[in-house]
């Protein structure tokens, strides 16, 4: 694992890079990254995995100009150019999936494939989502994990004072990007026809933050998209079902997006 900081549009962006192979940019979700995401470690066996902390999250600075998800999309299109990634596999989870969608409707010139994992971004009327922000900590853990792994995961954030701070920082940054409209851009659905790269949709069967109905809606709106549903899994497949998550991503890229 290699840590680095890149100065991008006046923001010192922290990113980690691990493994070798084709570049894969992983965009994290509302919970951010603690540094121990077994699903990402598994991906690093096959890919050059690049995991930035979004501005304001983790060890990245708050940016003066990146205020919303549309800004994040342009910011990461800039990052892909700055790192000179010619053909990158883009994997986004939760808010990160939303960012990936907003990037892909703008410009796929350097994007080789797209994987959306429990992705935010859409709003389907009548498909209620649980609110990650308002609920108490123990309820949040039940929401994020299907199999009761939440409290152990939460405890891992309390391991050091720095991680503890990052946990709070991540919650604040998630709110900044996704508070209202909550976790979506109501106009996004009108532009998904622009996505012209192989797209795979990976979803936890028990995800209540963004329920599986959203996977179906994305499949419906993105040309040629396929869906993999992971059993015994809620909103954080890369943590709760790391092997199944990594297998779903890897197999898709090997077959559809060679």
């Amino acid at each position: 694992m290699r840590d680095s900081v890149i100065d991008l549009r006046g923001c010192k962006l922290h990113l980690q890079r691990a493994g070798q192979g084709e570049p894969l940019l992983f965009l994290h979700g509302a919970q951010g990254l603690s540094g121990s995401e077994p699903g990402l470690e598994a991906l690093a066996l096959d890919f050059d995995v690049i995991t930035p902390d979004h501005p304001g999250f983790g060890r990245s600075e708050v940016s003066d100009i990146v205020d919303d998800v549309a800004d994040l999309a342009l910011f990461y299109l800039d990052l892909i150019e700055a790192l000179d990634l010619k053909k990158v596999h883009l994997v986004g989870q939760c808010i990160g999936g939303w960012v990936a969608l907003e990037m892909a409707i703008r410009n796929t010139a350097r994007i080789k494939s797209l994987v959306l994992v429990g992705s935010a971004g859409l709003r389907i009327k009548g498909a209620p989502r649980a609110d990650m922000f308002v609920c108490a900590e123990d309820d949040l853990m039940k929401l994020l994990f299907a199999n009761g792994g939440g409290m152990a995961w939460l405890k891992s954030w309390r391991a050091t004072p720095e991680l503890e701070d990052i946990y709070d920082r991540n919650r604040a940054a998630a709110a900044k990007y996704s508070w209202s409209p909550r976790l979506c851009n109501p106009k996004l659905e009108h532009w998904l026809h622009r996505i012209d790269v192989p797209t795979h949709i990976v979803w936890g069967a028990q995800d209540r933050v963004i329920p599986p109905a959203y996977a179906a809606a994305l499949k419906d709106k993105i040309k040629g998209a396929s869906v993999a549903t992971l059993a015994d899994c809620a909103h954080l497949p890369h943590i709760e079902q790391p092997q199944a998550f990594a297998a779903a991503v890897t197999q898709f890229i090997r077959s559809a997006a060679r």
Partner: protein
Amino acid sequence: MKVFAFHLMPYAYLDMSYTQKHRAAWVVLPNTYFDPKKGHELYNRYLDELELVAELGYDGISVNEHHQNAYGLMPSPVVMAAALSRRTKNAKIAILGNAFCLREHPLTLAEEHAMIDCITGGRLISGMVRGIGAEYYSMGVNPAISHARFQEAHDLVVQAWTKPGPFAFEGKFYHFEYVNVWPRPYQQPHPPIWAPSTGSTETIEWAAHPSRRYVYLQAYSPITSVARYLNYYRECAQKMYGYTASSDQIGWSTPVYVAETDQKAREEAKPHIECLFNKLLRLPFEMIFPPGYLSMKSLKNMRSHKRSVSGQEHTVDTLIEQGIMLCGSPDTVRKQLTDTHRMLGFQNLLCLLQFATLPRDLTEKNIRLFAREVLPAVQALTDKEYAGMTVRAAE
């Protein structure tokens, strides 16, 4: 000292067994718990109580803003201030506060405040608040930008009140081609601005800034926290900005109940003040402090202090012991106020004389007894009686 009576206008008829089904009296408590006929009775009763206060020699009356809850039925305090403006003659009408930054259009509030100031001939005090965290759930405004938006809304409104219009306002959150507020406020350059807060360092530093010198009003806290924050305001003025804050810039807001004896006061206040803190202020941490609402620094401070106000079951005894409320005979309360004033030197006091389910008769008794036995002595307190920052050492 200036003494105000403050009303929250709670929904006193709330079925308190709601706690078995719902985790808060805010945001998620269904509005089917509200009976409009009871609401009609309560609003009129509460307005009567404030009008009575205005007749009895208090310096002012005060209302505030909260949304979608049973704790306070004033989503628009402007409506209450307007109702009071023609029914009172001399009392200040203090809106403490209005959350200008919760509005997509803060100018509507700038206009309404200017109207009330004109109607009352300059009796308005404009409190500017961010709103508590729960409002950010209820009104869908992003808590992570609330400090910045609060400051910008303030700048917009003050400019709208003071700068000849029309002019364009180009902010980060607010954009107006024509700012040209009619009417202009009666008071020049603008109504006094107060900054009520539960102790955000950022708010204190902002209010104390020499270009503002706004009255900082500390609400609902154990007396040790009140001391910490009020002293921090003075310290800020001195060390950060190099001027000595006047005691007129310092205010304290607290529930007050007086009765014939200490014992009687405790007994009469008990069910109602406990209802206020345990039922109406029932508000989980995540709701009071949504993500990003507090700076990381304030979040850490708050984790240790704030849980003492809303995170535990209170009894009238713990509330009195911790100095969260004043309760006792007139002698006791007068002495407590005098002693606290000697330590903290606040020249503005907001008394919450009706709380939760406190009924009409006890409320009126409280208002009258306080007015007769406590008010004159407290109003007579000046900066001469202020001894300085001694509480800090005793903490």
